Structure formats: C-alpha cells, structure tokens
C-alpha cells in the first residue's frame, strides 16, 4: 500500500469520495467555530478596537495563499517526474482556490489598513510581494486556459510554476530591500516558539487557521475530482465522435 496508488484516478476518486463528506463537515465547522469565536467571544484590543478581529480571516487566508502555491509546486514536480495525471490536475484545481485566498488576504488587509494605518494601500514589502504572488497566480491560470492540449498545458504550467516559485521568492527579498515596510512581523514565529498574539486571540485564530486549511484541502479535492470527470467526458466524447 503506497501513496502512489492514488495516482490511479479511480482509486483517487474513491478515496476522495470517502473522505470528502467528513472533511467538509470538519472544515466548515472549524471555520465557523473559529470565526464566530473570534468575532463575538474575544475582547476588543486596547489600541485596535474591534478591527483586530479581521485577523481571523486575514491571517489564515494569507497562510493558505502561500501554501496553495507550495502545494502546486509539489504537485507540478510530481507531474514532471512521475507523469501522474491526477497530480497535474490537482495543481490546476488548486490555483483558483489559491488566487481567491490571495485576494481575500489583500482585501481584508486593505480594510484593516484603512482605519489602522490611515491608508488602503502602501507599497510595503509584504503587501507588494502578495500582489506579485497574485499576478503569478493569474499568469498560471491564464496559461492553463490558453492551451488546448491538456498534456502540453500541464507540462508548461508545471515549469512555469517552478520558475515562478524561484522568482516569487526572489521578488519577496527584492521588495524587502527596496522598501522598508509598515506591516508587522509574523504573529506566530514557529521557529522561536514565541508569539506576539495573546492566548485569548490565539486559540480562535488557530482554529480558523485549521479551518481554512481543511477548506482548502476539501475544495482542492473536490475540484480535482471535477477535473478528472471533465477529462473523462472529453475522452468519451472523442470516442463517440470516432465511431
């Protein structure tokens, strides 16, 4: 029993059909609990007032925006190395979810920034690199859409994803150098084990982070299933046309 068994679309679909209902329930309930707890049952921050509560959407969305790209990178590598079609389709399915997460992070950030920083937008390194990430997502999706042949599209987007990752990281450090920013540092530095968020805010934040993660997984699995079925329909139609 190895992981590669699920490169078989039939097995993949069977597994995803089995886990998806549980995953939907877990994802929606933990997102719901995290958000409701965060919005209604945490105290207002002394300085930020109730605007602090946008953190429960902003941080998980930003987290998943980056992780979605990372997942696409891994899936692209698997496609390039082992030629598993499910992997390429998973990368394709994850991209629109990732772009929405990026957009949510950008928009909630702007909404929070207006009262707190006094501006909707500043050319801060973090904001700028997120905007660049957004552009990379758009380019990636556009390339998928533009190419007819699905294997060619998978190959080209996989290479684009790899090259894009290098340049996205590069841009991240370049904009850091270009402009020192307004955005606060990371709230939960994993490496040092410390955090700058108090427990009352941290627990619901953690729950909604888990919720967003599960939501991303569920959406991606679901969309991958759709892509597999679409490919099947195409194959069936092609066979019909020949006869």
């Amino acid at each position, binding site marked *: 029993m190895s992981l590669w068994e699920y490169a078989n679309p039939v097995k993949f679909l069977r597994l995803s059909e089995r886990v998806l209902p549980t995953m939907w329930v877990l994802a929606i309930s933990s997102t719901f609990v995290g958000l409701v707890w965060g919005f209604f049952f945490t105290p207002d921050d002394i300085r930020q007032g109730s605007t602090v509560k946008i953190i429960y959407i902003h941080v998980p969305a930003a987290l998943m925006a980056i992780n979605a790209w990372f997942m696409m990178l891994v899936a692209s590598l698997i496609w390039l190395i082992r030629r598993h079609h499910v992997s390429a389709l998973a990368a394709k399915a994850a991209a629109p979810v990732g772009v929405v997460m990026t957009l949510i992070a950008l928009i909630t950030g702007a909404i929070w920034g207006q009262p707190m920083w006094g501006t909707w937008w500043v050319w801060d390194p973090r904001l700028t690199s997120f905007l660049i990430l957004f552009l990379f997502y758009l*380019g990636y999706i556009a*390339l998928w859409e533009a*190419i007819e042949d699905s294997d*060619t599209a998978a190959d080209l987007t996989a290479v684009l994803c790899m*090259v*894009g990752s290098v340049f996205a990281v*590069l841009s991240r450090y370049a904009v850091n150098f270009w402009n020192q920013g307004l955005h606060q540092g990371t709230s939960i530095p994993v490496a040092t084990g410390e955090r700058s968020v108090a427990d009352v805010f941290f627990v619901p934040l953690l729950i909604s982070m888990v919720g967003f993660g599960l939501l991303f997984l569920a959406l991606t699995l679901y969309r991958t299933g759709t892509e597999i079925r679409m490919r099947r329909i195409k194959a069936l139609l092609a066979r019909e046309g020949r006869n």
Partner: protein
Amino acid sequence: MKALLIRDIRLAVRAGGGFGLGLAFFLIVIVMVPFAVGADTELLSKIAPGVLWIGALLACLLSLDRLLALDFEDGTLDLLATAPLPFEAALSVKSLAHWITTGLPLVIAAPVLGVLMNLPTQCYGWLVLSLLLGTPALSVIGTFGAALTVGIKRGGLLLSLLVLPLYVPTLIFGAESARRGAVGADVSTPMLLLAGISAAAIALMPFASAAVLKVNLR
C-alpha cells in the same frame, strides 16, 4: 553557434525584422511621460531613472513575441531541436541575438533620452551600467516567456502577463541602482545584486526555455 548568431542578427536587422521598432517605442514612451506628468524639470529629473528603466523594459517586452514565433512557424526550431548543438545553447544564442538587437541599442539610446528627461549628470554612468547589467536578464527571461507562449495564437497579452512578474526583481535592483546613482548614494549593493540576478538568469533560464520549447515542439 556563430552562424546561428549571425543569422539571427541579420534577420532582425533586415527589413521586416522589427529592428529599431523597440528603440522607436522606447523613444515614444519617454516622450509621452512629460505629457502625462507635466514638464516640471525637477520632477522629471527625479523620476527619470525609473521611467527610463520602465521604458527599456517595455521596449524589450514588445520585441519578445517575434523572438521565436517566426522560427516556430517556418520550422527552424524543429531543425535546431534536432541539431547536434544542444538546444539550450541554441536558445542562449537566440537570447544573445535578441539582446544585441534590442537590449544593446536601448542601453546606447538611454543616455540620449536621459537628456530629454533632465537626468542628473552623475547618474548617466550608473544608468548605462545598470541597463548593461540588467538587459541581458530581461532577454533570457523573455526568451523563456516566448518559449512558453510560442504555440498559442495571439499570445502577446498572455506573454506580458507571464513575463512582467518575472521582471520584477531585475527592475527593482536596476532602477534602484540608477536612482541611488542619481542622488549620489552608494550603488554597490543593488548593482551587485542586479549582476547576480543577470548571471543566474543567463546560466539557468536557457534550460527552462529549452524544456518548455521541447514540449511545444512535440
């Protein structure tokens, strides 16, 4: 390799090759800027390094869709792909030809246009140096973008969408070194980083370009 280089340059320079088109575009962008922001010389000289960099970058972008499309259509690329010369090397040569016919003229024209933009005197050297270091990276990254979109009809817009984000680091360091040169600050850090990006892009991007072009030629 030499023959390929000479062939590409000749094709670009002769009539219909689009040589000079990039230069004319560069000129026109720079001429448009004062109309848009006003003829205030102080403001112009402040934004001059950035505008010249953007102009050069766009002019470079404009010429990319010709880079591989014609050779793709008439089958030259198929021959190159099966030639004893490694495909990566052939693409490096094509990037070099693109740089000689597009990047280098831009570098040479930049100081002249700098006069129009009232560029500070001490900046000329740094601007030329930063463009000289940065435009090769623009050419090789652009070759990758052209290779990605070569099979797509009317891929011009898509090409811009794909390539411009990849140009960000080069633009940041290039414009930053020119800007620092204009105000007389120390330029060594951005200049070294720019050179580093160029060197890495020249070394690595042809492999990515060759990989995607082989997919497109399948």
